């Protein structure tokens, strides 16, 4: 019996390889046809996400609680009416300790009527009994180690190269895991699209040279926005960090949030 390489063997193997290549090419074409997808460059035209690093910072000393940011965000991003907020304002009222109680500081009374969208009504305690009171705007904290991105089962929420944390509404299955995993309560399930939703830093604005809607309308510069990779002259972010001592929310959870708060009190969670 002849052993070794025979002509038939070689031709057979070549034929198989050729068939394999043809099948792979055919499969790739078929795949594109099946998906009916015209593959685009993936990034917005003229915008390179690797060349920017967006950041927002909050100055609690400057927030006047007008709620224009909350309203603007809802308008700009078509957020449905109801308890769905991409950003909101909390009011902290710290009453004076009761006379004779010798406590250090009483607990804050916190409220956020409709997210603060239409401003705030009278405080829950009379003016004379208030020791401290302030407003805290809240939004996605742009975590370095986002727990929300970690737990998404399908890859619908992600960190972008330019510092935002986004959700792909055409891919999200609406399981709600990311909403549970966010320690800051900044995510919600959109009742109309049935997908998760959150602050996107107005990605559709910042990639075209505009500011996020909340930063745009804020009358008192409580929201500071900038591009760490392309700072403008008199960069407000740089000034913010130079002039303020800052804190972050829930540092013990290890999420490494990039949004810092100047003038934050120990009662703020």
């Amino acid at each position, binding site marked *: 019996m002849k052993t070794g390489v025979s002509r038939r063997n070689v031709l057979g193997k070549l034929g198989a390889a050729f068939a394999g290549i043809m099948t792979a090419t055919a499969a790739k074409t*078929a795949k594109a046809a099946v998906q009916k997808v015209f593959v685009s460059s993936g990034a917005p035209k003229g915008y390179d996400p690797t060349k920017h690093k967006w950041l927002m910072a909050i100055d609690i000393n400057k927030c*006047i609680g007008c709620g224009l940011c909350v309203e603007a965000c809802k308008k700009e991003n078509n957020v449905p009416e109801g308890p769905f907020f991409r950003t909101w304002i909390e009011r902290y009222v710290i009453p004076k300790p009761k006379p004779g109680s010798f406590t250090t500081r009483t607990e804050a009374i916190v409220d956020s009527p409709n997210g603060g969208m239409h401003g705030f009504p009278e405080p829950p305690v009379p*003016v004379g009994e208030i020791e401290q009171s302030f407003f805290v705007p809240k939004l996605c904290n742009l975590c370095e180690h986002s727990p929300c991105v970690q737990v998404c089962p399908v890859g619908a929420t992600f960190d972008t190269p330019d510092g935002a944390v986004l959700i792909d509404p055409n891919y999200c299955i609406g399981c709600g895991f990311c909403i549970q995993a966010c320690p800051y309560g900044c995510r919600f399930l959109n009742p109309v699209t049935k997908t998760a939703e959150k602050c996107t830093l107005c*990605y*559709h604005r910042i990639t075209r040279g*505009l*500011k996020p809607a909340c930063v745009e309308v804020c009358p008192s510069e409580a929201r500071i926005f900038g591009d760490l990779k392309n700072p403008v002259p008199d960069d407000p972010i740089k000034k913010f960090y130079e002039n303020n001592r800052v804190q972050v929310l829930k540092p013990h959870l290890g999420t490494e949030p990039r949004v810092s708060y100047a003038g934050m009190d120990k009662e703020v969670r």
Partner: protein
Amino acid sequence: MVRRYAGKIENGKNVNHQENRTFTPRRSFRMPPQIVRLVLLTITIVGSYLVARFFLTPSSFGRYGWYRGEALEELSSRPRSFAGKKACEECHSDECLKLSKAEHHGLSCEGCHGVGQAHADNPDIKIDIRTFSECARCHEANPSRPKWLKQISTKTHYPGQKCTECHVPHQPQEVP
């Protein structure tokens, strides 16, 4: 409960039985039928999963990370409602100049006048010119507001009158 037989059963006969002691070549190992069927079934199932995965995964998936790369373009192509102060300055530069010299220079036009992208695209679409209720939005006295902000109580500060009777919104120090 399985009884073990002393030898191999072939064609119903025990080949190693004494009476049948002719030389028979050792039978090659035969893969048990269960294993054969199961392996085929496994290959079919795993194979169809891999094929399905190849076809059903979006093509831009994995471009920048574990997500659809196209999502970046889709999210950045959404329509805008607010135009931004620069867009207002293009046509209303005189008002913006007056504003920039006064206390309200940091305010955005759309904060008081409402969304402006539609108007910026087509000036025939009118925009709100707000009335006095917008002023109270920021200037209503509230103990939570910082002290550097000028605050009045609408209950005691000329109740019932419009703010614009005594104040010019773009230049708060001026009188109309």
